[in-house]
């Protein structure tokens, strides 16, 4: 029980710390600023969550987000149709990877590590120098200012609810999660594990594309390395959100909460605590270790 609350608890802790250090940050404007990058991080985390639900790992999601960013800032603006086709094709490549990994029984870590170079290379080819510009409609969406609730929070809510419904509430979502829980049982019930793997990877591709687009909508221009940190952030987000590497135990709501926690803890909290930005990455690592340690303690006590 306590374990299920851990993601929300971690987020609350970080928020309390921020409120204590700088009460003014807890405001419409403050959240807009602090959660600036939360939307793409949350989307990338959701992307990673899908592969993890199938007991795989995607080490290329970061460079993939970068690649999508580069395409968004160039082709999607200059030749929308071509841009859309390229992005759809990229999702197709993800689906193919899922098929390849299933059919040849390959370790996803190595395959996606190789793919991380491919996406990075393609990003460099699309946009050799930092630049480009996001399409206007995308900029408009990302700078949307709804009344009362800051946009990043609203968006996180929408993402969490939509994915929660899709994965946790639909009848095929059950099959997708089941493939991570007990693949043999699923096969015996007559389901195709090839299809579930393809579906999970395609969903990862889809949310990777959304993450890249959202990122460019915020930063307005792109750079081939812009998404590199997202691989690690996305994995950390899923784990913080209560997900496990094996067994199909994932939680979309938890993943979004985990992503928000990371987004807040990485930079705003450190700034308020007057800790130099050098330690940003370390803060992510430390949070991860603390949460995992807490989890071990809790499950020991519950046993």
């Amino acid at each position, binding site marked *: 029980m306590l374990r299920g609350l851990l993601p929300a608890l971690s987020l609350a802790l970080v928020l309390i710390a921020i409120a204590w250090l700088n009460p003014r940050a807890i405001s419409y404007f403050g959240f807009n600023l602090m959660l600036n990058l939360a939307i793409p991080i949350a989307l990338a985390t959701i992307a990673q969550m899908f592969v993890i639900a199938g007991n795989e790992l995607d080490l290329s999601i970061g460079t993939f987000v970068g690649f999508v960013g580069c395409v968004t800032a160039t082709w999607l603006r200059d030749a929308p149709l071509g841009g859309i086709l390229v992005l759809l094709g990229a999702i197709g490549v993800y689906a193919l990877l899922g098929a390849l990994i299933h059919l040849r029984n390959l370790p996803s870590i190595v395959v996606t590590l190789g793919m991380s170079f491919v996406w990075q290379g393609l990003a460099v080819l699309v946009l050799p120098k930092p630049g480009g510009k996001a399409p206007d409609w995308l900029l408009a969406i990302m700078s949307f200012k709804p009344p009362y609730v800051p946009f990043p929070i609203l968006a996180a809510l929408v993402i969490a609810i939509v994915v929660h419904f899709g994965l946790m509430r639909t*009848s*095929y979502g*059950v099959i997708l999660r*089941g493939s991570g829980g*007990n693949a043999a*049982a699923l096969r*015996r*019930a*007559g389901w195709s594990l090839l299809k579930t793997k393809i579906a999970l990877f395609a969903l990862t591709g889809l949310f990777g594309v959304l993450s890249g687009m959202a990122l460019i909508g915020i930063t307005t221009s792109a750079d081939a390395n812009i998404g590199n940190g997202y691989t690690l952030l996305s994995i950390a987000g899923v784990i913080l959100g209560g997900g496990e590497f094996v067994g*199909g135990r994932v939680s979309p709501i938890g993943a979004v909460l985990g992503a928000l926690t990371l987004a807040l803890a990485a930079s705003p909290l450190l700034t308020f605590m007057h800790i130099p930005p050098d330690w940003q990455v370390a803060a992510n690592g430390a949070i991860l270790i603390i949460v995992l340690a807490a989890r071990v303690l809790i499950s020991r006590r519950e046993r």
Partner: protein
Amino acid sequence: MLQAIADIVRLNGAEKHFGAVRALNGVDFHVGAGECVGLVGHNGAGKSTLMHMVAGTLRPDGGQIAVRGNAETSYSVARALELGIRCVFQELSLCPNLSVAENTRINHPSLTGLGWRRRAADLIRAKLDEIFPDHGISADDIAGDLSIGRRQMVEVARAFTLTREPLHLVILDEPTSSLDAHTAGQLLSFVRRFVGQGGSCILISHVLGEVLQNADRIVVMRDGKVVAADAASAFDRDRLVAAMGGAEGHRKAPVEARKAEAGALRVRARPARQEDGKELVARAGEIIGLAGLAGHGQTDLLLAIFSAAARARAGIEVTAPVALVAGDRQSDGIFAQWSIAQNIGIRSLARLRNGLLISPRREAELAEFWKQKIGIRTPDMNNNIFSLSGGNQQKALFARALGSDAEIVLMDDPMRGVDIGTKLEVYDLVREEAAKGRTFLWYTTETEELDNCDHVYVFKNGRIVANLRRDELTEEKIIQSSFGDAA
């Protein structure tokens, strides 16, 4: 001809090989409509393999399968489900991360669209209520959080739920293994009701009474073949046991008073769940049996003793080096990439060294010695371990333990699925080694093996409930203790 159509399923000459092992050797088998067929046989007799074939999860290497009189050329799970044939497998096949209702959904492709969750929950709840009236399971419970007994109840109930697909035959592979007597009774009476309404069942169970009382017809398997098939009323317990091969090859070990009185203490262990003062004591030169129904704490105690040899543990005293012979070869014993010689040598690496390096010569010598001594049938000990038949693989595992410096040898039901010839050779070897002063702790599910033991501890629910000397050892006593209300 009419007879053939009344068959739900019929297999002719079914064969299956796993590497060098022949799991099924030309089996004819059929189930009629409205019939409950009991299937019995020792572990490794080929029952599960045969059932995998009926359920479509394994393809036969030879032979035909026909469902309701129609030959099926490309039989598969999906096809079996379409034809109304379902299976509750021995190893649990629930997804532990999903709820009870969600697990039900997995077996019913038609449970989709709006409101599927409610329909799935209603479906499983109704069936649970029908079979196990006082089950206490909620459709929202996560399968992994349920006790093993309740998981088995869900699994059985799920197999009988009905949506779009027909339901004609349910295979129940050890359906009562994790159920208490009360729920097991509920299940079996449900099975009779189901059969009474025209459904068919295959009931596999090691509890012979269950089969005798509930099956209409009984099929006995041994070594991948059907050795007897007759109406249940034609069998009694003794005839079943005889057909299974329990009496044959049964050779009472000479009961000479080899009792090395009070040898040095080797092991003193109390199971973690033991509440009274009973404990297991083993001395040098003794062969100690661990009996009782499968999974009642025997393996746990062996593993606890094994760990205690490396690091002290409360309640367990071990005074000499320990080696373990695994029963589940694939998951606990074999190193698949290695040769026979390497598989034997791994427990004795320190002694095989010449300076810092392992000497290939000494490793080969050790392997060759045991090849002769225990009779491993292979042209070359450098061949991969999987070039051996199952029985010879098991011999290699014995060689690993006996070739080591261990004075205490733990045996975790190591004769599962091993042919009788190998068994007899190993029994002799075990007695010979015990005479030299080694101590054996021998967990076995095959009662006749206990005749080799000096002492037998009977386990129930993780506790020792009886301690029988060899001269007071009878199958009845063991069964009484295993099923008794004691502890």
